[in-house]
């Protein structure tokens, strides 16, 4: 079972409790969003927030020690105040973790050996940090760079990006790593897949049309559909329980969180802040979007509720 511990992390020669990261909500207007809740007060760049399906745990990865390490954390949101702990005791980087639908396991990106510049694997691990096992790696010498795992809603498979075939494409595999299926074909970049909660689509970012745009395919790789058409970058798609899209876009000259319908229509700026907002994920109830923002410093986590 998951046991919340009060962790301390080594940073810059001093020990600091991560419990201090958590602060109370800030009430600030946002359009078309509602109340903004600041989840961390870390001032250390955080990356890829991801909720457990019951909303009791929030995962994120953290750049620390002067940017020399990036490690996966899990924060117990039921504690008062919430308490974060490192997921593993690895020396080499691990990050971009996401909870399995039952909340018992996580998929995360690991660097098997530092300094290899490209050998990036995906591993499965219990939420208590035990039983780390590589499920998508370079064991056959062909895979070199796997990243950004996303579970299917039933937990039987996961989608991920890989450079296995010479450029970055989207693949899926069974949870244990077998039955790898290539889902996209493009000479450019296909990345950051998100398996929709309804299980009917995998949304991802692609540069096949210039810039980065969002597209979707069915889980069998058919039915490629373009979802966005905009200047600049549309990236990091997240699909809500009802199929709505959240994503980051710099179409207005600054990285903001946007919302859109499931087909990409009706895009609107959710965050409207002059500093960077990025890497959105939906809260489990679909009523808010959690994201990374520099609005109060460097890369903290916030949740913005959707306006009624």
């Amino acid at each position, binding site marked *: 079972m998951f046991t919340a511990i009060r962790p301390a992390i080594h*940073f*810059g*020669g*001093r020990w600091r409790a991560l419990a201090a990261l958590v602060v109370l909500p800030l009430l600030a207007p946002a359009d078309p969003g509602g109340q903004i809740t600041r989840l961390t007060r870390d*001032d*250390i*760049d955080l*990356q890829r927030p991801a909720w457990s399906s019951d909303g009791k745990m929030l995962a994120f990865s953290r*750049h620390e020690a*002067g*940017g*020399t*390490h*990036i490690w996966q954390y899990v924060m117990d949101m039921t504690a008062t105040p919430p308490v974060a702990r490192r997921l593993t005791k690895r020396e*080499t*980087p691990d*990050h971009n973790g996401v909870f399995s639908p039952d909340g018992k396991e996580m998929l995360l990106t690991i*660097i098997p050996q*530092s*300094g*290899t*510049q*490209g050998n*990036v694997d995906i591993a499965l691990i219990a939420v208590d940090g035990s039983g780390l096992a590589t499920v998508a790696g370079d064991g056959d010498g062909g895979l*070199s*760079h796997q*990243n950004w795992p996303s579970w299917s809603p039933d937990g039987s498979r996961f989608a991920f990006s890989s*450079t296995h075939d*010479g*450029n*970055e494409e989207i693949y899926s595999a069974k949870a244990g790593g077998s039955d790898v299926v290539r889902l996209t074909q493009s*000479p*450019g*970049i296909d*990345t*950051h897949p998100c398996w929709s909660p309804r299980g009917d689509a995998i949304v991802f970012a692609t*540069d*096949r049309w*210039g*810039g*980065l745009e969002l597209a979707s395919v069915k889980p069998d790789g058919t039915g490629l559909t373009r979802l966005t058409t905009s*200047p*600049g*970058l549309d*990236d990091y798609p997240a699909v809500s329980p009802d199929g709505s899209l959240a994503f980051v876009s*710099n179409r207005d*000259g*600054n*990285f903001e969180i946007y919302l859109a319908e499931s087909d990409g229509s009706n895009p609107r700026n959710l965050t409207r802040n002059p500093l*960077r907002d*990025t*890497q959105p994920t939906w809260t489990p109830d679909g009523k808010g979007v959690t994201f990374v923002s*520099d609005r109060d*410093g*460097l890369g903290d986590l916030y949740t913005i509720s959707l306006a009624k």
Partner: protein
Amino acid sequence: MRNLQDSLRRTHGNRPTRRAFLQVGGLGALGLALPELFAMRAKAQGMNAPARSVIMLWLWGGPSHLDTFDMKPDAALEYRGPFESIATANPALRVCELLPKLARHADKFSVIRSMHHESNDHGVAGTIALTGSIDGSVNLGGSTASGVMRPSTGAIVGRIKRDAMPAGSLPPYVILGNQLHQGLKRVVGEGGGSLGTPFDPFRIDYEPGVGLRLPDIDLPEGLTAERLLARWELRQGLQPDGLAASRPLAVMDKHYEMAHTLISSRESLSALDLNREPKAVRDAYGPHRFGQCCLIARRLVEAGLPFVQVNWSTHVEAPEDAGDGGWDMHDRYFQIMQDRHGWMLDRALSALIGDLDARGLLESTLIVAVGEFGRTPRINVKAGRDHWNNCYSALVAGGGVAGGRVVGASDPRGEHPIDRPSTPADLGATILDRLGIGAGDVTGIGLNPSGSPITELF
């Protein structure tokens, strides 16, 4: 003599004119002491130069020219990548969409698009880029190139400007950052080279959430630079006047020696105190280490230092590769550019240019932003870009450099220069020229001049 110097200062501030210097030189036989003569000569040297100081932004690891200042929107997808170009304040220049703030200052800076040199090894290229010469460089395999290592451009400036520095100031050549590394190997080329270790840089660093650091000094656990200085003041206060200053340095441990260097320079010390900056200014530079170090660099230049280098990182590699976030992105390239390097460079460099301009200091401060090479125009099989020394870009601003110019050009894929090729030696000669340091000055300290100023920038 003191009266004459005071007279000069009253007439010309702290920068006497060449005529005044010659007058003083002519009076040497009347009693000018040799050290004073050297000091006055150093102060007079470069007195009419357009630049008083240089801020070198060292983008360690090698930024991609195709994703910063030399976009190739008409190239094939495998070359141009996902980033689009945006218009700037300079109609002749488009830059990467990740640099929108910098784009608004494009009338204040110029870009050299035809930089190149002979090595794609970080260690060797770093030495070439910092010294203008491959001599004495060490490659990844540990082999050392023949020849005597030249001093870095910063060390040359430090050597020539040293005698003009006010008593008690920081050394004239300061690097904000640790000694450069490629993997676990130290990279040479930042130091005094053939001029000797006295002309190595004085290193300071800043870490968000921690504060100032002294990278050359292995401080005891939990002891920050600020606390070290506080200890020094306490130590001084407990001793009779003058005792501490008169004690031989040999009897002090190196921590206190370093502290003494800092504490004896009240002006420079205050220049390091970012708490004196309004929050809005600090925020403008960005919360990240590089941004705050750019702000410190501006403060050091205001305090009169002639050469400040800000290292983007210690290691070329990203944290995913056991580095600390350098520009050497062989994979995950476009994600890291979007999430980190793009906005970090955009915010810090645009704030620095704008801040210096607003203070009237851009005219006398030369900013150079460059790495040791560019990156492969063709995207590799890991969605990254590899090393590319055959063509890359440099940004220059202020200090006697015209804004809004694009010097040199690369071919349609950004693989090779097709117009006005320039080398790191040329860029080094340009820096020296803008500081008023000519070939004669370089020869005067025992070095052979190298490179030619890129006059199209002036």
